[in-house]
């Protein structure tokens, strides 16, 4: 807020008056208020109000930009970008096969879209991610908070409680096995109540409410700077009825996508969307494709398609800028999203280079 008055985007005449009256920083302007300002420099109250709005916008936008580090004036080399991306955290899903094909997990600053038929596990993954984003850094997480925007009413808090309890239990077992001081300290604040209190839940009943909510998200994320995940479950539901004019829908979806990309970048958070599937009737057969049309396909950086193969649930990485297309199987247990088979046991002694997220399996478990 210490910006000089001369750098604010106000009319030159106004700036001259402000300088003559002795105002030097933006903070002084904001402190004076519209009435005081209009009296001091001899402008109408309306003009003073407008000027203060501009100042507020500038300072707010400036703060957001310095926090995110992006903006039109930033330049950097590709090497810097690579280093930044490699140090970027991932939000794990607890299914290591899925994490591997994603390159580590759900990536921050990117939009990930999950498509699938009803009942295949999209909402389950969203709930799992809303818990996993909060895992402390010493356990391999990003220690963030989550925003959950629900348009279908499928958020059942009892299920989130089960998932969160299982996650806390998992971390406790790792801490017991590895016996490190920072693990114990982190676990003091990583409890069920804590996890639940950092999932911010919004219920949007139609697309107007959803649009309004997304307009308000940047401000919310600036106030809650620890948020590292924004989930919209699902993005298709409010947009698939009520639209005679499909071009309006395309325009609104494009605008939404742009806003979400900016939010993901500015606030260093992952954006996860769930989408429905629809039937596309082809020449000789019909196939299931993600809903909302072809142009929506460009909105997400990473696209996952969940589907069935008899009674096995499969996840296919359909679109990714850096990982290759791949299909893995996953399971949904009472604890949440998991692998189909337990990951291979690394025969390590003495705890060298143990993956902080995994705990060594005991004999009883191996026999199971």
């Amino acid at each position, binding site marked *: 807020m210490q910006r000089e008055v001369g750098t604010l985007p106000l009319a030159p005449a106004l700036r001259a008056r402000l300088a003559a009256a002795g105002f030097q920083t933006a903070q002084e302007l904001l402190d004076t208020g519209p009435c005081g300002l209009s009296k001091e420099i001899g402008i109408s109250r309306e003009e003073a109000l*407008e000027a203060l*709005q501009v100042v507020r*916008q500038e300072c707010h936008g400036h703060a957001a930009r310095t926090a995110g580090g992006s903006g039109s004036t930033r330049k950097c080399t590709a090497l810097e970008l690579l280093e930044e991306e490699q140090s970027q955290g991932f939000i794990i899903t607890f299914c290591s096969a899925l994490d591997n094909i994603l390159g580590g997990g759900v990536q921050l600053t990117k939009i990930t879209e999950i498509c699938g038929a*009803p009942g295949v596990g999209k909402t389950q993954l969203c709930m799992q991610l809303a818990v996993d984003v909060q895992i402390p850094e010493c356990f391999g997480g990003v220690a963030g908070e989550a925003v959950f925007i629900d348009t279908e009413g499928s958020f059942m808090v009892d299920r989130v409680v089960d998932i969160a309890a299982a996650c806390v239990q998992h971390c406790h077992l790792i801490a017991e096995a590895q016996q490190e001081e920072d693990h114990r300290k982190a676990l003091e604040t990583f409890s069920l109540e804590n996890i639940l209190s950092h999932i911010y839940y919004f219920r949007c009943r139609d697309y*107007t409410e959803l649009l309004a909510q997304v307009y308000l998200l940047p401000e919310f994320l600036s106030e809650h700077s620890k948020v590292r995940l924004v989930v919209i479950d699902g993005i298709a539901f409010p947009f698939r009825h*009520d639209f005679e004019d499909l071009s309006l829908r395309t325009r609104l979806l494009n605008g939404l996508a742009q806003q979400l990309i900016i939010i993901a970048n500015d606030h260093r958070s992952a954006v996860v969307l769930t989408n429905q599937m629809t039937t596309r009737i082809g020449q000789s057969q019909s196939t299931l494709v993600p809903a909302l049309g072809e142009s929506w396909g460009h909105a997400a950086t990473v696209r996952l398609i969940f589907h069935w193969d008899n009674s096995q649930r499969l996840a296919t990485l359909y679109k990714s800028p850096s990982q290759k297309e791949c299909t893995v199987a996953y399971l949904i247990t009472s604890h949440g999203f998991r692998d189909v088979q337990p990951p291979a046991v690394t025969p390590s002694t003495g705890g060298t280079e143990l993956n902080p997220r995994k705990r060594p399996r005991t004999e009883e478990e191996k026999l199971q």
Partner: protein
Amino acid sequence: MDWDQFDLNPKTVAALKKADIKSVKEILNLSGADLQRLMKLPSADIQCLLKTVSHTLRRNSMLTALQLYQDKDNFPSQHQRLSLGCSLLDNLLKGGIPLVGITELAGESSAGKTQIGLQLCLCVQYPHKYGGLESGAVYICTEDVFPSKRLQQLIDQQHKLRADVPAEIIQKIRFGNSIFVEQAADLDTFQQCITRRLSLLLARGMVRLVVIDSMAALFRGEFGPAEAALRARYLQTFGAQLHSLSTRFRTPIVCINQVTDVVSESEAAQCSCRVVGSRVTPALGITWSNQLLMRLMVRRVSLPGHSPGTASHCAGSRRTLSVVFAPHLPPSFCYYTVQLEGVKGTK
């Protein structure tokens, strides 16, 4: 729309009135550039306008999951369920039918779907303490005549089914009075029914349950294969209207659906019916499945040999109620029978 009630710059309000913008929805539907052009204001003002109307629309809408979990009184849709009238069936569903959202009950004919629908119409009238919602029900018939004789039988036998409820409470409830039966044999009548009659009954608080028997009958024979898109539009519109009513009035909507045969392997893979060996899938396709919160299936399975102790109509068959998908339930099933007093789960 009274723009003065918003916390807006008088210049913005004047521009809104001049551009003839009448609602918040119109503002949000226009892009930033369009708004600038229409209202002839700079972009900073437009951003301020968008933020202000968004704030007003979404005031006090943030909750934490902890509040949803702990504050059981203010969020009944997270903690309360509509009981099915039998503790075994309720255990399968972890309490019963969720209060908000469309629950589907699909199955072959004579599997027991209408029986469960009728039973729910009676269960909803009990007090909250006994798993009901203390209100009536609307039963929308789309093909058959409403089974009023069977309903009367069920009413007479309620004391036998609900042994957990004291007799004087059962006697006080006038079951027949609170069940509203609607007939809707085609799409237009159904549309009228939902938009007019249903909203009226729900707004007056006279009903807290809607049973639709059945959805598939409305669409059978009406749409040829070339009109798939039109059919999808109808389904989406109905789904959205029902969903909106359910959310506004916190009323469960139970849709009874029929099943069709699975034609090919790929189709079997597409549907989410994981019941092994099942050659049927719920009708109306993925368009309808996308509207549902929860899907239950009832089947009649014939077993080799006779199972003692079950009062099934034909010897050697068992009925199962299974959860196909639900956001809070694992896929599971349980057995049940249809007796004189109603539908009861069996071990």
